């Protein structure tokens, strides 16, 4: 297993290098200028050029790329060109909130999605199945930002149970969880809808497999057939889905972060892109790449734990 994990990490390094190269070139090819973000729209071309010089943007692309890569190899993610602050410090300021939100949303998604999916599959073409399918379809159809605003209106403005926006301090767990509740719920409901549909479909297939029929013919209780024999292999594709969903959420929870005014990696990346803040964009991409590797390795480990065939390959 360890060897398997190490292999996955080593494969990720060239992938990360390619991604970094693409991002490095893409942000520079796009029109826009970080010097403009620093000086504003009244700056003269001479003043802009002076700032570009200071930022090292007048150096040739290979020189800039080498500076960037050598920095990363030294563990230095560089600085934000617009704010002058360390990219690592800025990212670390928001990363815990992103990880917390992603983890909470996925957990909620699994807690909602797996039982609902199983329940729907077991009651195929009966009302629990119809309810599960309709609700999950509604969840898939809802844009995250719209669901977020509806939740805010009802639970925060009308009932006053949760705060509308912001993040609570980690040193105050109660406040922190209250701030987390609505954003996690809005993403959790949507991820729960995905998990429900996948779980339902997988469990439906498994329930028709020979080994399930054998288990039933041995006279095992339906509950044991379901939970001991059908669900474990059924969770393998769900684990893949969760892995992919985690990666997606890490970067694309941006609309939820904006609506709930939560700091986060996605929001940081969008903002840096709008300002053409090459330094920060590159820093976020490195961290994001590292997170993708970690999530993939974890997914593979879980995958292996659920399905022994994977480990033996």
């Amino acid at each position, binding site marked *: 297993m360890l060897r398997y994990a190490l292999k996955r990490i080593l494969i990720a390094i060239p992938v990360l290098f390619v991604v970094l190269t693409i991002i490095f070139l893409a942000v520079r090819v*796009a*029109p*826009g*200028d970080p010097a*403009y*973000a*620093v*000086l*504003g*729209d*009244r*700056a*003269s*071309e*001479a*003043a802009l050029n*002076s700032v570009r010089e*200071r930022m090292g943007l007048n150096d040739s692309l290979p020189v800039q790329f080498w500076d960037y890569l050598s920095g990363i190899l030294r563990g230095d993610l560089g600085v934000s060109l*617009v*704010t*002058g*602050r360390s990219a690592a*410090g*800025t990212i670390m*300021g*928001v990363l815990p909130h992103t990880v917390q939100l992603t983890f909470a949303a996925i957990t909620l998604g699994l807690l909602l999605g797996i039982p609902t999916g199983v329940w729907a599959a077991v009651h195929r073409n009966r009302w629990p199945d119809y309810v599960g399918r309709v609700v999950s379809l509604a969840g898939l159809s809802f844009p995250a930002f719209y669901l977020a*605003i509806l939740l*805010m*209106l009802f639970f*925060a*403005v009308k009932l*006053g149970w949760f*705060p*509308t*926006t*912001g*993040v609570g301090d980690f040193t105050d767990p109660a406040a922190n969880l209250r701030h987390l509740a609505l954003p996690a719920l809005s993403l959790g409901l949507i991820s729960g809808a995905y998990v429900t549909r996948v779980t339902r479909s997988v469990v439906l297939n498994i329930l028709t497999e020979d080994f399930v029929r054998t288990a039933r013919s041995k006279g095992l209780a339906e509950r044991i057939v379901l939970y001991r024999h059908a669900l474990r292999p059924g969770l393998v594709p769900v684990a893949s889905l969760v892995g992919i969903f985690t990666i997606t959420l890490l970067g694309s929870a941006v609309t939820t972060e*904006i*609506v*709930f*005014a*939560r*700091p*986060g990696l996605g*929001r*940081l990346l*969008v*903002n840096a892109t*709008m*300002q*053409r803040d090459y330094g920060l964009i590159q820093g976020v991409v490195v961290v994001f790449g590292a997170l993708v590797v970690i999530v993939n390795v974890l997914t593979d480990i879980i995958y292996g734990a659920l399905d022994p065939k994977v480990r033996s390959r």
Partner: protein
Amino acid sequence: MHAVLNAKSFRLFVMIAVLGLLASACSGPEDEGAEDDQPVAEEATPDGEAAPADGSQAEGEEEEAPEVDLADRRVLRVGGFAADIGLLDPQFANAGMDRQIMKPMFEGLVRYIPGDITAGFEPAIATEVPEVPEPNEDGTQTWEFDIREGVMCHPGPNNDQYELTAEDVVLSYEKTINPDTAAFAPDYEVVESVEAVDDRTVAFTLSSPRSASLFLPLVADFAGGYVVCSQAVNMDNVEEFQSHPVGTGPFMFSEYNPGNNIVLEANDDYWRGPPRLAGIDMSFMADESSRTLALQAGELDFIFGVLEDQWVERIDAEDGLTAIALPVGGLHFLNINMAREPFDDLRVRQAVAYAQNRAAHVAVSGESVKIPAYSIEPLPDSRGGLTFEEAQELGLDYSYDPERARELLAEAGYPDGFSFEVVSSELAIYSDHYVVLQAALAEVGIDMQVEVVDHPTMHSLIREDNNALIEYLAPRPTMDQLLTQFAHSDSIVVEGSSPVSNFSHFAGADDLIEEARVETDEERQGELWREANIKILEEAAIIANTHDNNTFAWQDDFDPGHEPIATLESSFVLNENTGFTN
């Protein structure tokens, strides 16, 4: 809305008066000493209308500050409109949110009358607003300021609290005029030197004379005019200062959480007296719905609003909330590229001018948010600008007249119109204008294809002379800045000697703009600006469209501490007098 505001202002006035009486009844000899230090202001308005130095403001200055119960103050919770801020350096604060958060921390030598930039300046770090000095024999001009005693620099990571001297002021403006350490250096090219005459006197030598309306904004509480504390600034390493800014304002930096919020705390040693607020906590909330909901839920005390009449009316009608639209010095105007066919033909430019429909632009956001404009000017009715009646009398109002536009196009050889492409920012403040213009031009046969790009891309492309027509929103504090940046030949994009934002390629009023810049007689200066505006309109190079106001909302117990009438560049004054009524 105004009725609400006026009633509140009246209550505030009564409260201040009662507290003032109580404070004066309780005052001892120390307060008398402080009164001696109060300046008698001579005022000058930012666009030069000499405000009557009849002592009215001086009376205001002498009014005792309300007594503040330090133990019972609250932190003001603000919902800001940006996703984050840039450098924590007042002299790099070029974005609206950055300026908003710098203002409570820093001061200039003088300050705009809080809440009303049209009312002139009052003393701040300087003990008085100086009169316009006569030019020196060599053609230069020297402005001297006496530095107030008792102005304390906030304590910072590298300095204890200390009293500000001329040395700090000199360093501040040396930083401002240096393009490596400030974003506003181009505005200060006229400053030849800043010197400390003694510990309490600073002299600015200008290469050519400036009127009060052009010089005082350079040393006021805005943009490059802020004074920083020298012990906190290492000129060889300003980055350190930018992580913990140190000034002399009523609030001092406390903490910054990237992408989340910035917190300021009260400076109880502020020379005007302790602030009424315990601090300011500004959250970065780019989504306007979230700001509104958080205000409605009572989690915020003050927010930057949505640029719509209906939003203002809806929020203002809610119990416990107040919303206003406030002029913030933003002019929307259409730049027509005279160097690009077929717009190099005056008749085509005039046709575009007659085709555009100001009423339709106003209708997009509503009459409280957009006000029709007829010439380049920082605020409605600015000196040197043209009112509708004045423009109409000259035949240069370019009121909506599609029939006339079609005739002009036919005369120019385009009876069936023509097609061209432009890029617009994705931001609604730009794209809305392009959409309205697109419809208006289509009515006269001109097909304008609009490609929507992200905001930085638009700024980049239009500076490469990409667009034939450019809708632009420019908040600028002075007429000179508007005319210099958008209508002087030096500023022509790509081709100018110092390219900035002259997108129209207009070069027909350089002499007037330059003459007005050094004219110290403000009446004459206004005439020169007016003449420049007329030339621009005669050439149909830049067609003013609307003055854009900003909207704000707050809980009813929020008290601005001033009457909001007109402010600078999207900002709202939050100062030592801002507080709560309960």
